[in-house]
């Protein structure tokens, strides 16, 4: 049953309010003023191009970032450094079954780790020092790791590491086409352990990811509370927002899967597809639902993805 307020001198709220608002004000003169206002109003452009250009700019920026940092192949230059010269840092990835050399010298390739960890550099230095030249690699050896070693003198050398079950390893120098053989001593770490991220560091990274995922709703809730923003009943601004958001997620997912097969060494560029649904969401929230300020959450997510990606790259380099 409805709860109704009654005023003593009026039958209901509406009636009393109408009476208190007084006589009719929207007269012919006001109607004429409104008509003049409408007639003199400039015709707006068919579409608000500001937002479209902003979005095109954002996408172009991401594309430019990808192009600038794209470095899919490596050509071995002439070098003067010996294989066991002091190492400054090295780029590494786990070899694939097809034996292709897919290490790149970009810090922005998730499949290639640019390792600057002093302990790991010392361990690799030991492996490269205790080697002797041999004729060839036995067929029983399996391709372990690909490396580009950056020496202190500025030279870079592309190497392929092979191992077998007898605790021996072989290093193939792509520049000189020379093969070296070494044996893992007790204190040596295998090349695989050297190039992969420290397990405890990876655990901490995952923990941070989980914490971010857990904290995100709480932080946004706090922000909205402080800003005095009420949560919207619907998740999307409009039906079109819903369709486009879901479509962009599907596009990103299919694009991710397709790109994984086409260019599996370029994880970072593929992961950049993650941005698309969030940029789309931000666009709709900012363009059509700005009053609800949900775009803050979208922007927050974009920033968090960037932080996670940068954190991952940083973790691979130093841990």
């Amino acid at each position, binding site marked *: 049953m409805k709860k109704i307020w*009654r005023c003593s001198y009026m039958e209901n*709220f509406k009636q009393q309010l109408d009476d208190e608002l007084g006589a009719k*004000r*929207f007269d012919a003169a006001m*109607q004429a003023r409104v008509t003049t206002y409408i007639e003199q109003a400039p015709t707006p452009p068919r579409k608000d191009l500001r937002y479209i250009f902003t979005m095109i700019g954002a996408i172009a920026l991401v594309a430019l970032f990808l192009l600038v940092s794209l470095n899919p192949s490596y050509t071995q230059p002439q070098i003067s450094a010996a294989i066991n010269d002091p190492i400054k840092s090295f780029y590494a990835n786990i070899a694939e079954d097809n034996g292709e050399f897919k290490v790149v010298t970009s810090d922005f390739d998730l499949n290639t780790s640019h390792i600057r960890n002093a302990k790991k550099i010392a361990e690799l230095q030991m492996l490269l020092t205790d080697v002797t030249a041999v004729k060839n690699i036995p067929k029983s050896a399996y391709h372990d790791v690909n490396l580009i070693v950056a020496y202190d003198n500025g030279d870079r050398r592309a190497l392929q590491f092979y191992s077998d079950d007898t605790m021996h390893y072989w290093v193939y120098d792509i520049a000189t086409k020379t093969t070296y053989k070494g044996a893992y001593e007790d204190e040596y770490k295998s090349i695989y352990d050297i190039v992969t991220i420290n397990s405890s560091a990876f655990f901490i990274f995952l923990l941070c990811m989980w914490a971010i995922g857990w904290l995100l709703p709480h932080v946004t809730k706090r922000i909205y509370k402080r800003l005095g923003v009420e949560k919207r*009943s619907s998740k999307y601004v409009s039906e079109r927002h819903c369709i486009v958001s879901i479509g962009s997620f599907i596009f990103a997912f299919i694009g991710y899967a397709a790109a994984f097969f086409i260019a599996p060494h370029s994880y970072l560029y593929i992961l950049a597809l993650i941005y698309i649904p969030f940029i789309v969401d931000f666009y709709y929230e900012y363009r059509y639902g700005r009053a609800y300020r949900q775009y803050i959450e979208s922007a927050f997510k974009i920033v968090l993805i960037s932080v996670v990606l940068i954190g991952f790259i940083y973790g691979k380099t130093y841990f």
Partner: protein
Amino acid sequence: MGVELQKVMTDYGEYCLRVAYLYTQDWLAAEEVVQDVFLAYAMKPDNFRGDSALKTYLVKITVHKSHDYLRKQKKWWHLKLPMTVVSAATTVEKKSEQTMLLDALNQLPLKYREVLILYYYEELNTTEISEMLGFSVNTVKTRLNRARKALKPLLNEEDLEVLLHGEF
């Protein structure tokens, strides 16, 4: 200018003006809002798909335009001059009228005032209000409850009594 638009203005102009006034508490501002309402309607008449009554559609635009107006006022408040001069006509008009409920309503914060306006004046139900304002139905109900509690001390016992109790 279409004849249809003139008819719409004649039919609903006064109503929209009153709604805008209840939001802005200023007749000049209300007229400004109503101008924008009919401009929006005139520019994109196809946006009205006939899912609801035209009156409800126009009220929805009025609510949004009033919000826009109040937001602008809030943004540029520092540029406004204090209102020191009140016209004699306004004073006389105010004194001559019994505006108990209106004065009480105007003392409420906008978030409470608007749910009262939409629920009691526009006679929309809580679901329609929630769709119009973009809040959940529960939020609307909570605000209605709080608005009525806030309104109660502002009105005399003689002027106001709750008739019936129940759900919205």
